[in-house]
């Protein structure tokens, strides 16, 4: 692949991290080749292009790999800067966007995983943290259309894939995101009106079925 022109994405169908990259590429109208990866049996290609983490997503642009979803999204934003900017131009607003994207990375996936993996007190703790995190994000969103203001931006890309996981989190944790954070749910619906999002996110019921497969694999009833 070295020396080859074009954009290739090594990814896994339900990964919210991979979906961030797909959404960013679509927002920028970048054509790319999607290569589904078998995470139980990682390909030589994946191990070659991400020897450090051995994870998806990996964007390979003209033979050069970029790893880590938020690093990739920033790269996409900087390289294809002529269309649909995801990060604002003002440095303070950029810093604010990076801060909240980092917060989402630290909280949402980890709490979500603990929600389906753990039982009893561990699960309750994860639920409490998840709700707290979503409420903080709701506070940051405020009355804005998107986290990026009038434009769909970096924080929106970072968070929106997890919207399709809410049903799984709610079912495992026995709570309602709509009840706790109605503005986040309303924001999620606005995002789904964008083609880049609606064509990328999986049906929440399908995500939940995937979580059930994971629970079985990890021996969690």
């Amino acid at each position, binding site marked *: 692949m070295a020396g080859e022109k074009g954009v290739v994405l090594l990814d896994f169908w339900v990964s919210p991290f991979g979906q961030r990259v797909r959404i960013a590429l679509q927002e920028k109208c970048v054509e790319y080749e999607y290569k589904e990866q078998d995470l139980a049996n990682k390909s030589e290609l994946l191990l070659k292009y991400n020897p*450090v983490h051995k994870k998806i997503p990996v964007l390979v642009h003209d033979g050069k790999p970029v790893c880590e979803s938020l*690093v990739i999204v920033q*790269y996409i934003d900087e*390289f294809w800067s002529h269309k649909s900017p995801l990060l604002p131009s003002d*440095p*303070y607003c950029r*810093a604010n966007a*990076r*801060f909240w994207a*980092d917060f989402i990375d630290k909280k949402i996936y980890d709490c979500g995983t603990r929600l389906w993996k753990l039982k009893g007190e561990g699960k309750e703790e994860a639920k409490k943290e998840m709700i707290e995190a979503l409420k903080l994000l709701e506070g940051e969103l405020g009355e804005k259309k998107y986290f990026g203001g009038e434009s769909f931006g970096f924080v929106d890309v970072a968070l929106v894939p997890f919207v399709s996981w809410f049903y799984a989190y709610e079912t495992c944790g026995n709570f309602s995101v709509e009840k706790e954070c109605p503005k986040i749910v309303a924001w999620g619906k606005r995002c789904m009106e964008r083609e880049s999002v609606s064509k990328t996110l999986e049906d929440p019921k399908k995500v939940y079925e995937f979580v059930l497969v994971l629970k079985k694999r990890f021996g969690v009833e």
Partner: protein
Amino acid sequence: MKSGTVKLHGSWGSFYSHRVQLALHLKGVKYEYIEEDLENKSPSLLSYNPVHKKVPVLVHGDCPIAESLVILQYVDEVWKANPIMPVDDPYERAMVSFWCHFVDDKLRKSFRSAIRSSGEGQAEAIEEFHQNLMFLEKKLAVNGTKFFGGEKIDMLDIVMGCGSHWFKAFEEVSGVKLIDPNSFPHFITWNQSFLEFEQVKEVIPPAAKMIDYAKSIYKNILGHVHFSSEVIALILQVFKWNPKSRCLLSAFQELDSKSSSKVKAQCP
């Protein structure tokens, strides 16, 4: 674009604070430094960083920015002198960003596992740390330059260099050789160059002082006793459950929770 005074809420012992101090110094930015007592955080800090309640926090004008990697990118974008990230090359910028996150998310995480474990668990954590450090060792070997940033330090040098005294502290306390010069010759040389870099010496307290400080925290971690429910039950049995032992039990429980938060506040 924000303007106005620049303030930095930091802690002298926090290498996350050092990162920001170093970047500001490299760029010749004048700022007011506010030393925070991590066991008694100021109302200003808590209002500027309500989410994480941690140092460092940069306040530009009256606008706060938290999280050291976010602050470093902000500083680089606002003050253009002596860039710490490649300019005008999205791919090279992505690479620096990737490696900075690797240091914080993977390398330091494996080091934290090593200092908090013992025996076989520690040996495994150290092995993982070595695997992670080898990526940086090879990067330095391939680059063939003094620093990750070439002849000058860049963001990766700052992120990796600040806090590297912890490795020496671990070795001196545990007696375990963590970074063997035969396996990591380029890393050892790079670390020495970093510590001798003029602006690093001007900003960061001397290595000996930082090592001693890290050692005291590490010894605190090692000497810290968690009073598990089983131990508490044993204490109750030993004192045959009378009013005096109830007070003693409460004292042990309070000591346990206090020392937990103190240790957590200062750990890498």
